[in-house]
C-alpha cells in the first residue's frame, strides 16, 4: 500500500486581458469560490495561489492577476516572464477586449516560450444577450494560434474551474523529478517482525 506522496507541481500562471474583462473575478471564483459584482480595480498586480489535484499529481498554481489598463502593460513582462501558463481573458460583450486579447497572445508568442500553455477565456458568458464576440470566430482563432479556448463566467461559475483544470492537465508533467517534495524516508525498518511461524 503505502504509496509515496503524489507528485506536486508548482506552476506560475498569469492572467492578462483588458480592463474589466474579469481577470480578478475569475481568480476570485477559482480561488475562493466567490463572486463580487464590483471587484476593486487591480493596481499593478495581485497574487493568489491555489492547489488542485489532477490525476495523480497536485498542481499548485501561483497566480498573478495583472492590472488591465493598457499603461500597466509595461509591468506585465515582469509577471509573465517565466510563467508556465497564461490565461488571456476578454469580455464576450466587448470586441475591444477581444482585440486586446489578441495583442496579448501575440506578445506572449513573441516571447518564444513554446512551453507556456496559453488559454483564451471569453468571460461573462452569462451575458448571452449582450454577446458581441462569437464563440465560433474565437474558436477558429484559438485553433490557428494553438491556444485552448473556453467561454467562462465568473459570475455563474461556468468553466472557471474547468479552465484551470485543463491547464493543469496540460502542464508538462515531465518536469524533472528534481526537487523531491516530501522526503522519502530511507530508514524504514525493513525487518518485519517475522510472523511467529507455527508448527506446520
Amino acid at each position: 500500500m503505502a504509496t509515496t506522496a503524489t507528485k506536486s507541481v508548482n506552476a506560475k500562471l498569469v492572467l492578462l486581458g483588458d480592463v474589466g474583462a474579469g481577470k480578478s473575478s475569475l481568480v476570485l471564483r477559482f480561488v475562493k469560490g466567490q463572486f463580487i459584482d464590483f471587484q476593486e480595480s487591480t493596481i499593478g498586480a495581485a497574487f493568489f495561489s491555489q492547489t488542485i489535484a489532477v490525476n495523480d499529481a497536485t498542481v499548485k498554481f501561483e497566480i498573478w492577476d495583472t492590472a488591465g489598463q493598457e499603461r500597466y502593460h509595461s509591468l506585465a513582462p515582469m509577471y509573465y516572464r517565466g510563467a508556465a501558463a497564461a490565461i488571456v481573458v476578454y469580455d464576450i460583450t466587448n470586441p475591444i477586449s477581444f482585440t486586446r486579447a489578441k495583442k496579448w497572445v501575440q506578445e506572449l508568442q513573441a516571447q518564444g516560450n513554446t512551453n507556456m500553455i496559453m488559454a483564451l477565456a471569453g468571460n461573462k458568458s452569462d451575458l448571452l444577450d449582450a454577446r458581441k464576440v462569437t464563440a465560433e470566430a474565437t474558436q477558429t482563432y484559438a485553433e490557428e494560434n494553438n491556444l485552448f479556448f473556453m467561454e467562462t463566467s465568473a459570475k455563474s461559475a461556468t468553466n472557471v474551474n474547468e479552465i484551470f483544470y485543463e491547464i493543469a492537465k496540460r502542464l508538462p508533467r515531465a518536469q524533472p523529478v528534481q526537487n523531491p517534495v516530501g522526503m522519502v524516508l530511507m530508514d524504514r525498518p525493513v525487518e518485519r517482525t517475522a510472523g511467529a511461524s507455527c508448527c506446520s
Partner: protein
Amino acid sequence: MKAKNLSLITFEHKRDAYGFAVRPQHLQRYKEYANIYKEEEEERSDKWKDFLERQAESAELPIDGLSLEEDSSVVSGLETVISEQDDLESKTESKKSRNHNIQIWAQIRPSLAAIESMMSLHVNKKGQNPKAERDARNGDHLALIEEGKPTRGSVEEDSEEEFYDVERSDLVQDAASSDGSPRRVDHSSQLVSPELFFPWKEELECLVRGGVPMALRGELWQAFVGVRARRVENYYQDLLAAKDHDDKEELDVSPSNDSSNISNTNLKGATEKWKGQIEKDLPRTFPGHPALDEDGRNALRRLLTAYARHNPSVGYCQAMNFFAGLLLLLMPEENAFWTLMAIIDDYFDGYYSEEMIESQVDQLVFEELVHQRFPKLVNHLDYLGVQVAWVTGPWFLSIFVNMLPWESVLRVWDVLLFDGNRVMLFRSALAVMELYGPALVTTKDAGDAVTLLQSLAGSTFDSSQLVLTACMGYQAVNEAKLQELRNKHRPSVIAAMEERSRGVRAWKDSQGLACKLYSFKHDPQSILVDTNPTEGLGDVHANGEQHVSRTNNIDEFLNNMTGDGDADSVPDLKEQVVWLKVELCKLLEEKRSSILRAEELETALMEMVKQDNRRQLSARVEQLEHEVAELRQALADKQEQEHAMLQVLMRVEQEQKVTEDARLFAEQDAAAQKYAAHVLQEKYEEAMSTLAQMEKRAVMAETMLEATLQYQSGQVKALQPPSPSPRSGGNQEPMQEFPSRKVGLLSRPFGLGWRNKSPQGKTSNTEEPSDSKPNNDVVQAPSDLEKEMNGNENSEK
C-alpha cells in the same frame, strides 16, 4: 465636507471607522486595534490642540473674532462628529440640497494657516516649476481658461474669503465650545524667509509622524500639499465645463465648430480615451463604501475627468480612482482635485504617465535598497525566484491603498504628503520588509513567500510601529540619495522602453528588471555609490557590512584609479592592469556574495527543515503506514497461527478419537482376554476336578488292586497247605506277576495314598473274597484308567 462627515460615522462590523471594508481574515485584529486607534486618536488630538494653541499664542497677532471657535473645532471635531451623528447626517442632508457650486470648494480652517503658509512656501519654492510647466504643457486649454480670469495671485485672496464664509460657517457651528486663540492672517510676512521663521517645523514633523487627527486630516493634507498655493480660480469649473461642452458635442454632432472649440476637440481626443475607463472604475472604487453613493460617484467621475483633462499626458490611470475616492472622503471636491493634482503632478510626477517610467525606476531603486539593507532576505527571495518588485510594485503604485490596513495607509500618507516627496514610500516599504523579512526567510516556495508578504502587509495594523520604523530606521534613505539612485537606474528603464517601442523583440530575459538590477549590482559604479557619504550612520546595521565596506573601499580605490587613467590617457598596459584589478575585485565581490549566499542558503535550509512540518507529516504518515503494515502483518501472522492452532487442534482431536478407538479396542481385547482367562481358569478347574476324580479313581483302582492282591494272596495261602490245584495254579502265576508289575508302576506317584489307604483297603478287601467277578473288572480297570489318564493329558495339551 459631506463626505468627510459620513466617513466618520461608525459603520457595521465589516467596515472600519473610515467606512472601508475590512477583510474578513483581519476583522479580529482590527477589533483588537480599534481601541488602540481610539486612544491614539485622543492622544494626538490633545497634542495637536496644544500645538495649535501655542502656535496661535506665539503669533501674537490681532485677534480675529471668528477664530474664537476655530481651534476648538479642531480638537472637538472628532468627538462632536461621533456624538452627534444623527445631527450631522441631517446637516449633510441639508447641505446636499444646496447648490453644488458652493460646497465644491472650501478653505481650510484658519488655525492651520501657519502650517499651510509654510507648506505653501515649500510648494512655491519648488512647485513654481510644475505650475509653469503645466501652463506650457497644457497651454492650449489653459490659455482658454485663463481668458476669463484675472491674474492668479490676487484672486486667491479674494476667493478665499468668499468660500470661507459660505462653507466654514457650517463647520464652525458644528464645533461646540469656544476657546480664545488668535488667528494668523498675515500671509505676506511669512513669504519672506522659509525655515528660519518656522522654528516649530521640527515639532510639527514629529506630530505628523505621530499621526494627524482624523478631524484635521483633510485640511492638513491640503495644507501639506499647498492646495491654496496651487489653486487657480475657476480652473476646475472650467475643466468641468469643457466636459459638459464635450458631452453636448457628442449629442449634437456638429461639424461646424469654429475656432473657439479647437481646444475642446483636442481635449475631447484626450479625455474620450479615458472616459470609458473612468466609467468602468467608478463602481470599482471602494465598492460599498457608504459615502460613495450616487453623489459620491458623480463627484469621483468629475474629479477624475477633470484631472484627465488637466493633464492629458497622464490622463486617467488606475489607482488614481482610489486616491480621488480617498480624498473625496476627506475634503470637498475642488480641494480634492487640487490635492490629487499635487500628488500626481508633483509628488508622483512621471509615475502614472503612459509609460510609467518613474514607477519602474523606483522599483529598481527600491530593489537596490532592499538588497543593501536586507541581503539575506534578498538572497532567499532570489533563491525562491521571487522578485521584490512583484509585490512592492503594486504597493508603490497604489501608495499602499488596499495593501495595508487603512489606519496605516493614512499614517503613511500623512508623512508622505508632509514630506512633499516619495521618500516615505520607500521608508515604509523598507519598514514592512524589516518587520516581515524574518518570516519571509522561512518560506519554501515562491508562492508561499508572496502570499505571506501580501497577507502580513495586509495585517500591519500597528500603524505607529510602521511609521516609526519607517521614519526612524531609514533616515539614511533621503531624497538626495533616492534621486541619485533614480538617475542611475533611469537610463536602463528608458532604454528598455525605447527598445520595446521600437518593436525590437523586447523582453528578452536579459532585459528584465531583475537582470538589470543584477547588472547594476555588479557594476563597480554602483558600489562606488554605496560608499557615498550621504548614506551616513543609519546604514551600519546592514548585514555583512564589514565585508561590504572593505570591498567597497577597494573598488573605490580602483575606480579612482580608472578615473585617473582616463584623465591621463595612460598606456594600455596600465589600463589593462586596472582592468584586471577591477575584474579581480568583481570576482572577489562575486565570491563574497556567493559565500554569503551559501551561508544564507544553509541557514534557510536549516530553518526550512526545522519548520517543515510537511516533511515531518509525510515522515509521520510513512511511519504510521509502516506501523499499519506491521500491524497487518502481525494480524496476518496471528491469523496464520490461529489457523495452524486450529489444524493442530483438529489433529489432536482426531488422534484423540483414534486413541479412544484404540482404547475401546483394547478394552474389548482386555475383556476378551479376561474371558479367555476365565475360560482357561474354568478349564483348568475342570481339569483339576477331573484330575481329582482321576486320582480318586486311581486310588480306588489301587485300593481295588490292593484288595484284589490281598484276596489273591489270601487264596494262595489257603490253597498252599492242602495240595495246590493244577488248574488254579496254572492260571494264577501269570496273573500274579502282571498286576504286581502294574502296582509297581502305579505305586510310584500314588504310593503314599496307596499305603495310607491300604489298611482300609485291607479291611474292605476282606469283605470281597466271595465275589470273583469284580476281579475281572479290576483287572480291566487299570487299563481304562490308563486310557482315561492319557485322554486327560491329551485334552490338557
